[in-house]
C-alpha cells in the first residue's frame, strides 16, 4: 500500500467480537432485554459505550468483555427516526420471525416453529442483547458492574442465555468453529465485479463482515447514511462511498439462534444404524459432519497448494492446525466418496470457486461460461462460495456428555444441551439466510434428494417428496448407501437478527431522539 493509510480500519470503533472470539474468556452470558424506558436506556448506553470492548488488540488481553447489539424494535424504542431505521436491510427490519416465508426458508417450521420458541418471537422478541464475557470466575463481578446505574430502570430482562465451556467441542462431540473466513482487515484484496475467481480462497473482503467497506462485489452494502445536518450525525464518521454520515460504519449484523441438540438421540440413532459397532458409529458420525471427531481433520485429503487465508495466524501452532484442518477443497472428491455431498461442513462451506475447472484460457473460459465442458454431472450446481461466508462466534450450552455416555438413556431432569449459534455478516440475506436456506435446509442441495443437513435438518415434509430424512453415502464403484429415517437432532429454540453497531454509532444511539 506504500504508506497510504486511508484504508486502515479504526479498530477502536469496532466491537471486539468481529475480530476476536474472546476464547480465554470462557464464561459468558447473553442478556436479552426489552427497553422499558428510553431515557434510562440512553443514559445506561452512554456510560456503557465507553466500556464496550473494541477490536483494538490489548496486551495483556482484558479479563472481561462487553458487546451490545439491537434489533429493529430496540432502535425504535430508542426513538431512532423512522427514516434512519428504514435504511437497514429488509431482513433485519422484518426480523428472523417476521413472516411465514422467512420461516419456511430458514427451516423454522414444524417443531422449529417460532411460536414454540423460548425467545425471539411475539412478546419475547428482544430489543437488545447485552453480551458479557469473562475469564473464569470473573463473570459475576463483571455483571454487577455492567448491570448497574440506570440498568434496572432501562431494561426488562426477557431471557438470559448462559453458554458453558465444554472444552471447545460442540455438544455432539466435534470440534466447533474449525473453519473461519480470514477477514481482509488491510483491505488489500482486490476484486473486480466482472472477473471470476478461479480458485477457492479463504480471504474475504472486509465489507462482507463490516458495513462501510467494500464487499466481494466491490460494492458497499446498503445501510443507513444520514445527512450531515441530521440530529446526532456529528457523532458519526463520513461514509466512504457517498456523501453523508455512516451509521453502519464499523457495525455489522449479528445472527443469534439457540439450537437445542439431542445429543443422546444423535448417538443412539447412530449406534442403531451402525448395528452397535463402535467404529462404524464413529465413522457414520464423521461422514455426517465431514470431519474426524478426534482432531477435526477433513475427510478429504489436504491439497498441495496453499489456500490464501488458510494458516495465516500469528501463532505457529495455530497456523499448523489451520493448515491441517482447512487446506482442502472438494475438487478431488466430486462424487462425494470420501466426504458425502450432504455432509454438514460440505453444505456449510462447499469451497467452490466462481467457475470450475480452472479455465485460464479465453476459449476454455468461454466454454465453461456457456455451461459446457464440465466432466462431472453435478459439476456446476454450487458455485461462488465466497459470497456466502459467515464469521461464527457460537458457544455451547449445557453440561458435557461424551459420545459413550450419550448411549445411556436419559434420566429424569436431564439438562438441555445445544449451541448458541452466533454469526456475523454484513448482508443477512446473502450470507446467513442463503447458507441456511439453499445449502443447509434445502433437500435438493447439490443435486441431492430427500435429505437436508444431517445434523440441522428439520425433516419436515416437502410437497411431492416421499420423505426428507435420508443421508446418502456415495460408494466407490457401486450404488450409494442410504441411511433412512433419521430423526431430528437439532431444534431451534430462539433467535433474532441484531445490529452490532460501531462505537460511534453506539454513541449516536445513546443520543437518539433526545
Amino acid at each position, binding site marked *: 500500500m506504500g504508506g497510504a493509510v486511508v484504508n486502515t480500519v479504526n479498530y477502536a470503533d469496532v466491537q471486539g467480537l468481529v475480530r476476536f472470539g474472546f476464547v480465554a474468556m470462557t464464561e459468558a452470558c447473553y442478556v436479552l432485554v426489552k427497553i422499558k424506558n428510553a431515557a434510562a436506556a440512553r443514559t445506561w448506553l452512554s456510560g456503557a459505550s465507553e466500556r464496550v470492548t473494541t477490536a483494538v488488540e490489548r496486551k495483556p488481553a482484558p479479563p472481561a468483555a462487553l458487546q451490545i447489539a439491537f434489533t429493529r424494535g430496540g432502535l425504535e424504542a430508542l426513538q431512532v427516526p423512522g427514516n434512519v431505521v428504514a435504511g437497514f436491510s429488509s431482513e433485519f427490519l422484518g426480523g428472523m420471525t*417476521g413472516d411465514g*416465508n422467512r420461516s419456511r426458508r430458514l427451516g423454522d417450521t414444524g417443531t422449529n416453529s417460532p411460536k414454540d420458541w423460548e425467545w425471539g418471537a411475539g412478546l419475547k422478541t428482544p430489543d437488545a442483547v447485552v453480551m458479557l464475557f469473562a475469564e473464569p470466575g470473573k463473570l459475576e463481578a463483571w455483571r454487577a458492574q455492567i448491570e448497574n446505574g440506570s440498568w434496572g430502570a432501562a431494561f426488562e430482562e426477557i431471557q438470559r442465555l448462559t453458554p458453558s465451556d465444554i472444552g471447545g467441542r460442540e455438544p455432539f462431540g466435534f470440534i466447533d468453529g474449525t473453519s473461519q473466513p480470514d477477514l481482509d482487515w488491510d483491505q488489500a484484496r482486490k476484486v473486480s465485479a466482472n472477473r471470476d475467481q478461479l480458485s477457492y480462497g479463504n480471504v474475504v473482503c472486509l465489507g462482507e463482515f463490516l458495513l462501510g467497506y467494500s464487499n466481494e462485489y466491490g460494492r458497499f452494502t446498503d445501510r443507513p447514511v444520514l445527512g450531515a445536518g441530521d440530529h446526532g450525525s456529528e457523532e458519526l464518521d463520513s461514509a466512504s462511498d457517498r456523501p453523508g454520515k455512516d451509521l453502519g460504519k464499523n457495525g455489522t449484523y449479528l445472527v443469534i439462534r439457540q439450537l437445542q441438540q439431542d445429543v443422546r438421540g444423535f448417538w443412539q440413532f447412530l449406534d442403531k444404524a451402525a448395528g452397535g459397532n463402535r467404529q462404524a458409529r464413529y465413522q457414520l458420525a464423521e461422514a455426517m459432519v465431514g470431519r474426524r471427531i478426534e482432531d477435526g481433520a477433513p475427510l478429504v485429503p489436504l491439497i498441495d497448494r496453499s489456500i490464501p487465508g488458510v494458516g495465516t495466524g500469528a501463532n505457529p501452532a495455530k497456523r499448523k492446525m489451520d493448515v491441517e484442518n482447512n487446506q482442502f477443497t472438494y475438487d478431488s472428491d466430486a462424487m462425494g466418496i470420501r466426504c458425502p455431498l450432504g455432509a454438514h461442513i460440505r453444505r456449510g462451506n462447499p469451497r467452490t470457486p466462481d467457475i470450475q475447472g480452472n479455465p485460464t484460457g479465453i476459449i476454455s473460459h468461454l466454454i465453461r461460461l456457456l455451461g459446457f465442458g464440465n466432466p462431472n454431472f453435478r459439476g456446476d450446481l454450487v458455485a*461462488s462460495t465466497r459470497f456466502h461466508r459467515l464469521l461464527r462466534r457460537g458457544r455451547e450450552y449445557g453440561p458435557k456428555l461424551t459420545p459413550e455416555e450419550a448411549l445411556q438413556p436419559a434420566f429424569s431432569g436431564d439438562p438441555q444441551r445445544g449451541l448458541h449459534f452466533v454469526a456475523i455478516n454484513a448482508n443477512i440475506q446473502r450470507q446467513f439466510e442463503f447458507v441456511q*436456506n439453499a445449502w443447509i435446509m*434445502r433437500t435438493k442441495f447439490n443435486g441431492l434428494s430427500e435429505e437436508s443437513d444431517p445434523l440441522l435438518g428439520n425433516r419436515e415434509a416437502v*410437497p*411431492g417428496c416421499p420423505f426428507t430424512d435420508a443421508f446418502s453415502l456415495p460408494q466407490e464403484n457401486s450404488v450409494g448407501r*442410504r441411511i433412512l429415517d433419521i430423526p431430528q437432532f437439532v431444534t431451534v429454540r430462539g433467535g433474532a437478527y441484531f445490529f452490532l453497531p460501531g462505537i460511534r454509532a453506539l454513541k449516536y444511539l445513546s443520543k437518539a431522539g433526545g
Partner: protein
Amino acid sequence: MTPQSSVFVMAALKIEREAELRVLLASMNELSGQANPANPLVPFTEFRQIHYARFAILEDETLGDIHAYFLPRVDYPVCLSFMADFDGMADDFRAELAQRAGAGLDRIFSCCQGYTPGTNLAQWMKNHEHPAAAMYVNWVGRTAAQVEEENALRLALEAEMQSAPSAYEGKTPRQIHAALKDFVYREKYEGRLKLTAPQATPFSWWFRNLVHLVGVPLVLLALAPVLILYAPVFLYQLRTREKSDPEIAPQVDPAYEEELAHLEDHDVTNQFTVIGSVKPGRFRRGTLIFVLWVLNWTARHIFNRGHLARVSTIHFARWVFVNDKRRVVFASNYDGSLDSYMDDFINKVGWGLNLAFSVGIGYPTTNWLVLDGSKNEQKFKYVLRRHELPTEVWYKAYPGLTAFDLRRNGRIRQGIERSAASAEELREWAALL
C-alpha cells in the same frame, strides 16, 4: 419426440370487475398462490400435457419511471395474463382447454374487455396471444407424462434397493444394472411401472425447427457486413446511453416484498413474473429485439438440454413483448428461493442478465452491455423485486421435483433401457442411484 409449446394470453381487465376476478382467481388456490390442481374452474390435473400454468394480473406500479426520461407516463390498462407450458401443439391445447375448462375460463375471461360469454373461447384466446420473443425450455422433448413415469421409476428402484439390500450392496455396477433391469422388466410386465416410448417428432415442427436452426445464422451471415459496419456506431450509441441512463433502484417497500414472499417457497420450485418498460427510443428497443432473437435461437438449438448457459435451475422461461414492444413481460419457473435464484444468476450469468434486461428502465448501469449491471448486486435485486408481480395462481404438474431431478431421472431411465454399456458408463449410472 413431442415438442413443447406455450401460450401467453393477455387482455385488459374491466376495471369494475377486478375485485371479482381476484376473488375468483384466489378460489382456485389451495395455498396462497398455489393452485389446487383439481380446482373446478381450470382442473389442471386433467391436462396431462401441462407442465406449468399461471394467471397473473399485470398491474405495473413503475409506469411513472418514464418521467426520468422527461416523457409523459402512459397508463397502460391493467391486464389479466394466462400462461401455460405444455406438450404438443397450441391449437390442440386451446381446443382442449375450451372443452374441459370452458365454463371456468368463461367466468375468468368475462372479466376482460372484449370478452362476451359464449364467445369461441379457443379463438378468443388465440386472438389475445402474444408470441414469446424468446422462449427457454429446460429439456426440449421431455413430456410431463415422461417426467411422471421417470420419477416413478426412480422411486421404485430406490424402494427395491432398500427392501432387498443384500441383492445390491457390494455388487458391481454391472450386476446391479442387470438386477435392476430385470426388476423393471417385471414391474412393467405387472403393470406397476410404465415407460412409454417417445412419439415420432411431428414433421411440421421438425421442419420449422430446421428452418429456424439454419435460417437465423444465414440471416446473421447476410447481415454481417452491415452489422460490422454499424458496430462502431452501435458502440458509440451504447456508451453514450450507458453513461447517462438513470438507475431507479430504491429499496423495495417491505410490505410489498412480504406480499410477494407470501406466494413463494411452498414448493421446491417457484414462479417469477416481472414486467418493465423498455428504455425509450429505437436504439434500445432494436437492441432488445436483436438480443432476444439471438437468445431465442440459442435456447432452441443450443441450450435445450438441461441448462441455460451455466444455470440449470430454470424449467421454463419466456420473454414477451407487449404494448407495441414498449414493455416486456418475463416469466419463469425456477428451483430454489428467489434470493438464491438471483445470487446464482448474478454469479453465473451476470453478463446474460445484462444482455437481456439492461434495456429496462432503471436497470443498474451496465458497461459495454454485458459488464457490471447485475454485479451491482443489491440494486439489481431491488430492481427485480420492484418489477415483480404477484402471480395469483400458479400450477406445477410435478411438485417436489427440480430440473436437476428430472435430468437425473432421465439418465436413470436411459441406463435401464440400455443393453450394452461400458464399465465406466455403468459406474456413472450406478452413482446416480
